[in-house]
C-alpha cells in the first residue's frame, strides 16, 4: 500500500458523503487519449498558451481566494485500480453558473427575457460574460494520479508539474503557496471554459509531463467554506506526509537532513560557556595595546 492510498479512499468517501448530503454533483468522463482530450478543449493548453496574467478587469470569476476558502490536494498511488481513470467530478456550482448571478435584473430581462428560445439563452450567456466577476467561489481541487511505476522518487517532480504558469489559456493560478487561488478570464468563459475544461486541461498537462501516469481522477468542490475546511484538514495531514517523502528523497541523495543537535549534546559547549570571558580578555588586551600605541 502506498502512503497516500488511505487519503485517496478518504477523499473519495468524503465526496460520496457530500453527494449523499444533497450537494449538486456533475460527473464527466474524459476521453482516454491525450489527443482526444486536447482536441475537445475550447481553449489552448501547453507552453505559452496564455499570457500568464489575467487582469482584475478581465476576470470572469475567482476561485479559492483565502477568504472564500481554498484547498489543494495532490495524491499519487501505484495502484491504478484505486482510481476511476478520466473521471472529473464537480460538487457545487460550475464556472458558467457564476456569470448569470453577476447580471442585474435589467440585464437579465433585456438579454434573456423568459428564456423562450435558444437565442435568448445565448444572449443571456453573452451578457453574463461581460458582467463584473462574481465574488470568489470557495474552491478545492483534488488531483489523484496513478501508475504502476510511480514511486516516492517521482513525487517532487509530480508536485512541480502542477505549477500551471502560462500553460492553460484563460486560467491563472496566483502565486500563492498556501493553497490554490486562481482566475478565469472573461474570454475563456465566453469560449465555454468550465470545470470540465479545467479538469481535462490538467489531465493533458500531467500526462504529457509524466508518461508514468496511467490514470488520473480529478475532483473540484465549490460548495461552501465549511466543506473546503474539512478537505483542508486532509490537506494538512497530507502535507506532513509530503514533507517526510521530500526528506527521505534528500537523504537518499546524500543530504544530512536530521538536525538533532542541541547545546547539551554539542562538543563545543564548554567553549560557548566561557566565550564571554574570553572576549572580555581580548578586548582588555586590545585596549592596552591601543593605549600603548597612543603613548
Amino acid at each position, binding site marked *: 500500500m502506498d502512503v497516500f492510498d488511505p487519503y485517496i479512499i478518504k477523499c473519495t468517501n468524503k465526496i460520496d458523503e457530500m453527494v449523499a448530503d444533497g450537494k449538486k454533483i456533475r460527473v464527466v468522463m474524459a476521453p482516454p487519449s491525450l489527443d482526444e482530450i486536447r482536441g475537445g478543449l475550447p481553449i489552448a493548453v501547453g507552453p505559452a498558451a496564455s499570457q*500568464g*496574467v489575467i487582469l482584475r478587469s478581465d476576470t470572469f470569476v475567482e476561485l479559492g481566494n*483565502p*477568504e472564500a476558502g481554498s484547498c489543494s490536494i495532490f495524491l499519487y498511488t501505484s495502484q491504478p485500480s484505486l482510481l476511476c481513470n478520466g473521471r472529473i467530478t464537480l460538487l457545487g456550482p460550475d464556472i458558467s453558473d457564476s456569470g448569470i448571478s453577476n447580471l442585474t435584473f435589467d440585464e437579465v430581462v433585456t438579454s434573456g427575457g423568459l428564456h423562450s428560445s435558444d437565442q435568448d439563452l445565448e444572449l443571456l450567456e453573452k451578457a453574463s460574460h461581460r458582467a463584473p466577476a462574481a465574488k470568489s467561489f470557495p474552491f478545492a481541487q483534488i488531483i489523484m494520479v496513478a501508475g504502476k511505476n510511480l514511486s516516492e522518487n517521482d513525487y517532487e517532480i509530480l508536485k512541480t508539474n502542477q*505549477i500551471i*504558469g502560462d500553460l492553460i489559456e484563460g486560467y491563472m493560478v496566483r502565486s500563492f503557496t*498556501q493553497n490554490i487561488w486562481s482566475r478565469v478570464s472573461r474570454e475563456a468563459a465566453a469560449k465555454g471554459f468550465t470545470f470540465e475544461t479545467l479538469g481535462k486541461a490538467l489531465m493533458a498537462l500531467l500526462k504529457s509531463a509524466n508518461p508514468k501516469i496511467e490514470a488520473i481522477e480529478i475532483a473540484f468542490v465549490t460548495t461552501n467554506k465549511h466543506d473546503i475546511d474539512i478537505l483542508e484538514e486532509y490537506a494538512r495531514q497530507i502535507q506532513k506526509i509530503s*514533507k517526510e517523502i521530500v526528506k527521505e528523497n*534528500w537523504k537518499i*541523495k546524500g543530504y544530512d537532513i536530521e538536525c538533532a543537535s542541541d547545546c547539551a549534546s554539542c562538543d563545543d559547549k564548554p567553549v560557548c560557556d566561557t566565550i564571554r570571558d574570553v572576549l572580555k580578555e581580548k578586548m582588555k588586551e586590545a585596549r592596552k595595546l591601543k593605549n600603548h600605541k597612543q603613548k
Partner: protein
Amino acid sequence: MNHQEILNQLDAEANDLFKELTIYGVNDNARKGLPFIIASDDALPEIPVAMNFSLSIMTVAGAMGTAGPEAATNIDRATEMGIENRLCNSVKMAAYYLEAGILPVPDMIITTNSPCDAVDMLGQLMDKYKPWADVPKFRLDSPHGHEPSDFAYFGEQLRACTREISRVTGRKFEMDRFLDVCNESNKQARLIQEFQELKRAVPCPVDPDMARKGWEIARWIAATDPAVFPKATRWLERLIEVTEDKVKHQLGIEGVDEKIRFLWYDVSPSWSSKLFPRLQKELGAVCMMNYYSFANWTPIDTSSEERIMSSIAEKYLMGTPMTRQAMHPADIYCEDVVRICKEFKCDAMVMPCHIGHRDTNAYHKLAKDVCRENGIPFLFLGCDVWDERYMTPEVVFDRMKTFFEVSGLL
C-alpha cells in the same frame, strides 16, 4: 502624466519616506510626541498603527545605515568596538548605533529571535545595554515550526505584548480599531499580491523592485509613523493602476530591452542601485523577485479575537521576508525557488549567499541541486549585501554576465 512620470513620482515619494527608517529617522521618531518603542527586528505594523505609537526597527536602521555615506567607516568602527567581525553588517551597524550611544532612549524594547541568530544577538545586546537598564522589555519567541499550534503560540505572545505595551505607554488596545487596521492591512497585502501577478507579463511592465518599496512603506514606515499607513494603500493603488495599464498595452520597463529574467532569492543589497539598473540597461536582465518583493501572505482572519492573533502570527512567521526563508525548513526555500522561476518565467536563479546568511547558505547545494533537477541555471555569489567592499557591484556584475553567457542566455 505618462506612465514613467507616475512611476518616477511614486519612486520619489517612497525614497522620501525611507528617511524615517534611517538612524536620523529613528531619532526624529522619538521626538514626534508618540510613545516610542524600539524593536530588534521586523515588526508587524498592525499593532503600532492600531495603538498609535511609533515603532522603530533596529535591524532596518542598521541596513539603511549600510547604504549611507559613512557606512564603511561605521562598519569598521563597530569591529573596533569588539563587535564580532563576521556578524551580518546590518546587525553590526545596528549594534554600533547602540554601543555608540546615538540612539534615543525608548519607552520600551521588543526583541525577538527571528529571523536569525544575529538579530537574536542584537536583541540580547539591547536587553543588556546599561543605559537602557530601566527600560521595560518584552521578548517574543518565534517558533521555527509552521503548524497551527506554532501560530497559536506566537499569537498568544502578541496578545501578551499588546497588554505590556498598554501598561507601559498608557495606550489602549481597542479591538474595533484593531479590526479596522487589520482589514486595511489585508487590502494592502492584496494590492501587493496583485502587483506580483502583473510581473508575470512579458515583458515585465514595471521594475519589480517597486513591490519592495510598497512593502516597506506599508510595513516598516507605517510602523514608525502610523499616519503613513492609509497613505500606503493609496500609493499601492496608484502603482497597480499604472502597472495594469502597461500590461494592457504590453509595455516593458522604460529603456530596457528585456532578454533575461532572473530570481535573486535573498535581500536586495544596499548597493543594488549600482547593480540592477546596470543589469537591466546593459544586459536586458531583469531581477523578477527578491525576498522583499515576494508577497506570500495569508490574510488576517478577523472572524474572532483568537483567530486574529494567530492569523497575524501566521502572516508574520510564514510571510515576513527572511523569517520565512531563515526560520523554516529548507524545502520551503527550495519550493519557493522552483515556483517563482516557473510562474514568473525566470531564466535563472542567483543565490547571493550573503556572508551574514549562514543559515540559508547552509543549504545552497540543496537549492542548486533542486534547480538543476528543474532545468534552472543556478549561480551562487558569496557577496555581502550590506558592504560592497567585500565583493564590489562591478565584480558581481561581471560574474553574473559570465554566468548568463555560459548558460546560453546572452
